[in-house]
């Protein structure tokens, strides 16, 4: 199977064609073609994963079987020690002079891991969509696009060279554009699709230049070759720095990193299954995948092994914080999840930046499950609970009674995202933080802990607003059909257990062993499991949940609570409300006020009044001064410049429009005249 893995992307590609041509004729309008194709692909990916594990085991087994002499012989013949090689097959795609551009497969641990994740989530999304998209006007088209997306993503994943990776990269971008704008009748959706496409394209320019630079540096497009060159002592450091920076821009665009993250929340205009598949689990992690694939370039370009600041870690850290902070102020449940995705992608990029290759890839792996679960859960809520609305404040609340399965799976996903042991997110986040702490990146470990706090708090708010309190919508909430709940349950199981693939204290460190591309890999540090750090992060998460509960209640008191009181008093005598209110008072008095009243409160009050206030005031004055200057610059210099530019553009446009007579033969005349002139030029300047 490993040698024939090219068939894995081919099946969804064929399914795309089949759905396009025959989908409308089929009894289920093409969805069955997609599901069967993706299910086949999933099975094949599982087979590939198992075979890869066997390959690694066999390889290690054969080395243990050798005697001491054999081992030393083996070590002396192979420079980097005994490592299992990837399966690389390539055929010539096109040829330019003596240089051949290949297309093919590179199957190693990272690739089979991605194959498994992509096909599993794609399969679940396909099943989910049969219910979620039921009756949609472009149902068949939707399934065709899903198949095309899966094929493109798999092409990207198995790419043996950066060119094929680039092709897959652009294809997934195109599919993302098509699917975000699936309901293009609304202008906002079209705009969101365009924004997503253009923003990621901005990053793609960086990727393209990075691919060219790495090609000229290493003399090959092959990923293994590029990594080997980058890690060899003779690598040109300047080229590596520039190449890594350009590739980083590509990652920033695709994986929603600061400052190009703005497209990702807007991309939620697409159907929810699309958000789960593309904008949570697979496409947006393509950037992280790229970083993991050509990690040697980043390692040697940014000197990651030395510790200290590097752009990759800094970008990731900034993204963690701004993503999490923004997630707080969203009322749209999908927007909360989108900003959460931004923040979690920040963890992955920061993980790569601090040398935690395994941590970043492992977080990619676990995040795919619980974030897809959360998105599909949000879709289930809007499908059956809130009458196709995503507004948590207006149309949700109290849904746990009506939608138990959705509630419990969503809760598991939230806990996994927040990082409660022993769910998936805990292990992967901890791996990144431990590596950062032990590799000389203490600052980034602290940022990661702050991010964990914020994550737990906003997820608490999200869960509360959606599932607790009173139902605020106007529909008839009920549990979703099986096609929706079954994928949720499957993903919930993965969210619980996926973390055990690399749980160090339990003696399970298989993930790194099988996934690490040891054949061309920098000497990353392997973190030891730090109980203190893990305990601290767990404590932070739990306290964040406590604070989240408190914040939610206070928010209710301030905004929605009054309305609720009135309604409940008028309707049912406010019984349930009273119970809630007492509960609230207990919490408020017992936990928060008692803590704040003491000396801590006074001290912090003093600091607040004297220190923070002064700082804030100073910052405010400075900001005003800067803003005033900027305003002048803006009004007098830039604005005038833009006005002039606009006027000139309008004038030249008016002039040029006279050429456009609309008459066919006029255009033909111009073309023939141009042909004549160019031929003459050719004759003269031959």
């Amino acid at each position: 199977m490993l040698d024939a893995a090219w068939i894995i992307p081919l099946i969804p590609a064929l399914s795309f064609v089949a759905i396009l041509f025959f989908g409308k004729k089929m009894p289920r309008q093409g969805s069955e073609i997609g599901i069967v194709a993706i299910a086949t692909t999933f099975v094949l990916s599982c087979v590939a994963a198992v075979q890869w594990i066997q390959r690694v085991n066999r390889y290690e087994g054969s080395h243990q079987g050798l005697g001491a002499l054999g081992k030393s012989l083996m070590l002396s013949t192979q420079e980097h020690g005994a490592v299992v090689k990837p399966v690389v097959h390539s055929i010539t795609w096109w040829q330019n002079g003596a240089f051949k551009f290949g297309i093919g497969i590179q199957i190693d641990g990272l690739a089979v891991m991605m194959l498994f994740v992509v096909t599993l989530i794609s399969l679940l999304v396909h099943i989910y969509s049969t219910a979620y998209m039921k009756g949609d006007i472009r149902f068949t088209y939707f399934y065709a696009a899903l198949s095309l997306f899966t094929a493109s993503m798999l092409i990207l994943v198995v790419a043996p060279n950066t060119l094929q990776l680039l092709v897959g990269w652009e294809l997934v971008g195109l599919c993302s554009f098509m699917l975000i704008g699936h309901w293009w009748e609304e202008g906002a959706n079209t705009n969101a699709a365009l924004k997503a496409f253009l923003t990621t394209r901005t990053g793609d320019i960086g990727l393209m230049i990075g691919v060219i630079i790495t090609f000229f540096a290493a003399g090959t497009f092959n990923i293994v070759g590029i990594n080997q060159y980058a890690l060899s002592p003779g690598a040109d450091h300047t080229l590596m720095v520039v190449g890594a920076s350009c590739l980083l821009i590509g990652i920033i665009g695709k994986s929603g990193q600061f400052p190009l993250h703005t497209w990702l929340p807007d991309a939620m205009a697409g159907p929810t299954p699309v958000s789960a598949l593309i904008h949570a689990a697979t496409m947006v992690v393509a950037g992280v995948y790229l970083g993991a694939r050509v990690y040697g370039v980043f390692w040697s370009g940014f000197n990651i092994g030395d510790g200290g600041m590097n752009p990759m870690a800094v970008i990731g850290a900034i993204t963690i914080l701004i993503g999490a902070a923004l997630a707080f102020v969203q009322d749209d449940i999908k927007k909360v999840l989108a900003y959460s995705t931004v923040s979690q992608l920040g963890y992955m990029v920061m993980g790569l930046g601090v040398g935690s290759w395994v941590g970043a890839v492992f977080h990619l792996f676990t995040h795919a499950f619980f974030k897809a679960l959360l998105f599909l859960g949000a879709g289930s809520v809007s499908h059956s609970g809130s009458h196709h609305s995503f507004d948590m404040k207006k149309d949700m609340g109290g849904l746990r009674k009506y939608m138990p399965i959705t509630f419990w799976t969503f809760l598991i996903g939230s806990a996994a995202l927040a990082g409660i042991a022993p769910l998936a997110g805990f292990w992967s986040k901890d791996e990144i933080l431990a590596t950062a702490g032990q590799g000389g990146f203490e600052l980034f470990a602290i940022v990661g802990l702050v991010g964990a706090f914020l994550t737990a708090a906003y997820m608490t708010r999200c869960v509360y607003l959606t599932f607790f309190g009173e139902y605020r919508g106007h529909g008839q909430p009920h549990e979703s059909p099986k096609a929706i709940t079954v994928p949720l349950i499957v993903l919930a199981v993965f969210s619980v257990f996926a973390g055990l693939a690399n749980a160090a204290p339990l003696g399970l460190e298989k993930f790194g062993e099988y996934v690490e591309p040891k054949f061309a890999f920098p000497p990353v540090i392997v973190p030891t499991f730090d109980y203190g750090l893990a305990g601290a992060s767990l404590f932070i998460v739990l306290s964040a949940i406590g604070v989240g509960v408190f914040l939610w209640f206070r928010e209710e008191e301030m905004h929605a609570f009054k309305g609720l009181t009135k309604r409940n008093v008028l309707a049912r005598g406010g019984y349930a409300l009273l119970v809630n209110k007492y509960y609230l008072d207990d919490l408020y008095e017992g936990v928060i006020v008692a803590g704040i009243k003491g000396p801590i409160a006074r001290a912090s009050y003093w600091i607040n009044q004297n220190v923070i206030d002064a700082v804030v005031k100073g910052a405010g004055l400075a900001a005003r001064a800067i803003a005033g200057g900027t305003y002048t610059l803006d009004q007098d210099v830039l604005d005038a410049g833009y006005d002039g530019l606009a006027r000139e553009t309008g004038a030249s446009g008016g002039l040029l429009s006279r050429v456009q007579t609309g008459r066919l033969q006029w255009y033909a005349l111009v073309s023939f005249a141009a042909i004549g002139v160019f031929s003459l030029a050719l004759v003269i300047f031959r």
Partner: protein
Amino acid sequence: MIAQNIAFWIIAVAMGFAAIGVVRTRNIVHAALYLVVVLAGVAAQYILLGAEFVAWVQVLIYIGAVVILFLFGIMLTRAPMEGDSDLDNDQRFPAAVAALFLLGVLVVLLLDAFGGTKIKLDAAVLATGKTAVVGDAIFRQYVVPFEVVSMLLLAALVGAVVIARRD
């Protein structure tokens, strides 16, 4: 060679005048008839060059089918049968300039590139004159394009019906 040269020049001059007639005449039916002369002249040139099969295909398809199609088109669009001064549009002069300019560039280019080149007609006829050779090439070397062209014809047939259908 002399006889062939004389034949060439007679045919070429007739073709030239007829071609100008196609684009200058004021009677649209006359244009179609001039076109017949040009097409027949081209077929005669093919025979001079030893491409006998292509020449007969030219006669059958162009003169036999395409010109008839044109006449149908003229009838169906109810063009005036007698002279009509309004057949040209108002960009006649720039069009003539563009065409003459193109012709000048082409002639200069051809004289420069193929100034002294000669065609050995006898050898050419021996090598490519037989219809069997053409058939061999079509059905061996060019069999895939041949099939594609047949698909194209089908598509054009359907397309013409769809476009021209009154509905």
